[in-house]
């Protein structure tokens, strides 16, 4: 990449200016106020859209004899794999200045952003090839910027290490969040378990009650059976008594029939005696028979009395049995009611127990979940520790790459120092470079202006060499603080850098530089 042409119209002090640049070293010389810095600023304005000197847009419009110009522009023509033509136009209307940008014929809506220009081009990162060292006395703190480090990490490692490190933090955050999420779930489950443990006590008391009721039911059943037995045995006794009575009545009837017969025999006997027709044998037989009848008659009397007694007993027994049966039936009914109530209660308790047992199953499940979550938390904790360790290693790796980068810068800077072939006290060390980049003042603060300038420019050139993609180097008066000897050496060194940079544009107020350059531009005061 190289600048081919620069055209200015009504830009600062220039009314109309057209300059051509060549490959190699382009030296712009002129007295103070001739516009050397303005030219570099114009190049910077064309490329970056920023006014490097920090002036207002309006202040860059030229003031002529007729007052301030209304329109001005900078046009830069760049030769590259894809040629670029950038125009930055400033227009003043109603005392307000506005800016317009056109790149390769395309209007760029947001004029101040390089990326906007790159968006309109097929080739990206074109401006990466340009290094604008605008003020060599400035220290290198700008290199401490995050975007510089990102660029550096992209150069040193195949990844965007800042992004990687940011994402290690994001991963830690992700793991912390996950762990906390799991802890919350775990706490919730522990609460559930507490509640279920109280249910466990309930189950235990219900089971006791269940057992008690079961025993009671057994007892009621026994009592009921006993009462039934008693009721049944009462019936048997009554039947037995009733059977005996029947038997006795039968016997009584038989005896009565027999007695009847005997009475008839007596009458017959009486008749025979009266008729005197009864033999002595028959008479004795009849007497015997009459005795028997008398005996039977006595027995009938006794049996009759017994029968009456039995009848009375039976009546009493029946009454008693009826009363006892009534009592027993009442008791049995009571037992039945008691049994029904107890069974219902038992069923309720059984139901409660089955529900409670479900709670216990639930408790076991929750316990399993708790175990799993605790394991998960342990895993996340281990992940967190590992992730932290890996972050440490990645940071070391990044620092290692940066550190090796600075070692190489140190070597390159000191090689450039050797190329100068001058005897200087200056020694460029890695620590000095890093300290300078970090903005820490070290021994370099004791450098003379010339030494500090030399230190800064050598380190910057070394960085550009190491990064390797810069082809256009723009230097603003790099030799401002150099004496003649150092100037000569520096210019000679610049000549040797033509392999690294295809074009170098530098300014100087010294006209008398004995220096072979490809293009020398002299500005009028």
């Amino acid at each position, binding site marked *: 990449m190289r600048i081919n042409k620069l055209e200015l119209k009504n830009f600062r002090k220039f009314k109309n200016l057209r300059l051509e640049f060549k490959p190699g070293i382009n030296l712009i010389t002129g007295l103070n106020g001739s516009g050397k810095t303005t030219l570099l600023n114009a190049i910077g304005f064309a490329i970056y859209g920023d006014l490097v000197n920090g002036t207002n847009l309006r202040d860059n419009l030229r003031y002529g004899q007729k007052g301030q110009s209304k329109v001005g522009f900078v046009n830069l023509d760049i030769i590259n794999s894809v040629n670029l033509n950038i125009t930055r136009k400033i227009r003043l209307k109603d005392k307000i200045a506005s800016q317009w940008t056109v790149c390769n014929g395309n209007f760029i809506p947001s004029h101040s952003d390089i990326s906007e220009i790159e968006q309109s081009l097929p080739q990206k990162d074109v401006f990466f090839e340009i290094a604008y060292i605008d003020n060599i006395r400035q220290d290198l703190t700008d290199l401490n910027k995050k975007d510089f480090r990102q660029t550096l990490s992209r*150069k*040193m*490692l*195949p*990844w*965007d290490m800042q*992004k*990687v490190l940011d*994402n*290690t933090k*994001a*991963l830690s955050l*992700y*793991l912390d969040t996950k762990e906390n999420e799991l802890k919350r779930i775990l706490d919730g489950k522990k609460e559930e378990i507490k509640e279920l443990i109280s249910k466990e006590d309930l189950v235990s008391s219900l089971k006791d009650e269940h057992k008690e009721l079961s025993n009671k039911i057994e007892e009621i059943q026994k009592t009921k059976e006993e009462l039934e037995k008693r009721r049944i045995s009462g019936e048997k006794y009554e039947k037995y008594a009733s059977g005996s009575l029947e038997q006795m009545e039968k016997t009584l009837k038989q005896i009565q029939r027999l007695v009847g017969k005997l009475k008839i025999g007596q009458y017959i006997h009486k008749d025979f005696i009266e008729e005197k027709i009864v033999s002595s044998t028959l008479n004795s037989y009849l007497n015997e028979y009459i005795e028997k009848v008398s005996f039977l008659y006595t027995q009938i009397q006794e049996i009759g009395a017994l029968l009456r007694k039995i009848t009375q007993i039976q009546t009493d027994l029946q009454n008693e049995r009826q009363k006892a049966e009534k009592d027993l039936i009442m008791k049995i009914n009571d037992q039945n009611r008691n049994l029904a109530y107890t069974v219902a209660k038992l069923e309720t308790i059984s139901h409660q127990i089955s529900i409670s047992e479900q709670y216990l199953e639930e408790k076991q499940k929750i316990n399993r979940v708790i175990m799993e979550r605790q394991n998960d938390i342990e*895993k996340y904790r*281990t*992940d967190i*520790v*590992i*992730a932290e*360790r*890996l972050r*440490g*290693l*990645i940071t*070391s*790796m990044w620092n*290692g*790459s940066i550190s*090796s980068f600075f070692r190489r810068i140190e070597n390159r800077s000191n090689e450039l120092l050797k190329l100068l072939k001058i005897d200087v006290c200056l020694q460029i060390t890695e620590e000095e470079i890093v300290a300078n980049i970090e903005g820490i003042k070290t021994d370099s603060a004791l450098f003379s202006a010339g030494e500090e300038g030399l230190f800064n420019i050598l380190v910057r050139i070394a960085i550009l060499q190491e990064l390797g993609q810069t082809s256009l180097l723009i230097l603003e008066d790099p030799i401002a603080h150099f004496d003649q000897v150092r100037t000569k050496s520096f210019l000679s060194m610049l000549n040797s850098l033509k392999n690294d940079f295809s074009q170098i544009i530098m300014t100087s107020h010294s006209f008398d530089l004995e220096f072979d350059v490809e293009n020398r531009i002299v500005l009028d005061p």
Partner: protein
Amino acid sequence: MNKVDAKRLLISILEKEIPDLTKEHKHKITEILLDYISLLNDGKIEKANELIRQNRDKLEMLV
């Protein structure tokens, strides 16, 4: 620096940080770490965590 150089750099860091790691472990961990960095570079945070989990037994040596 390409990925091979990155690996070399990582191995040298591991040697410095954990001197008693065997050569085999060093290379294995470096491979995992390179994949891990690539995933983080692509913003795949959950996959990076997955990678840690899958290789926890090897990475626990670092802790």
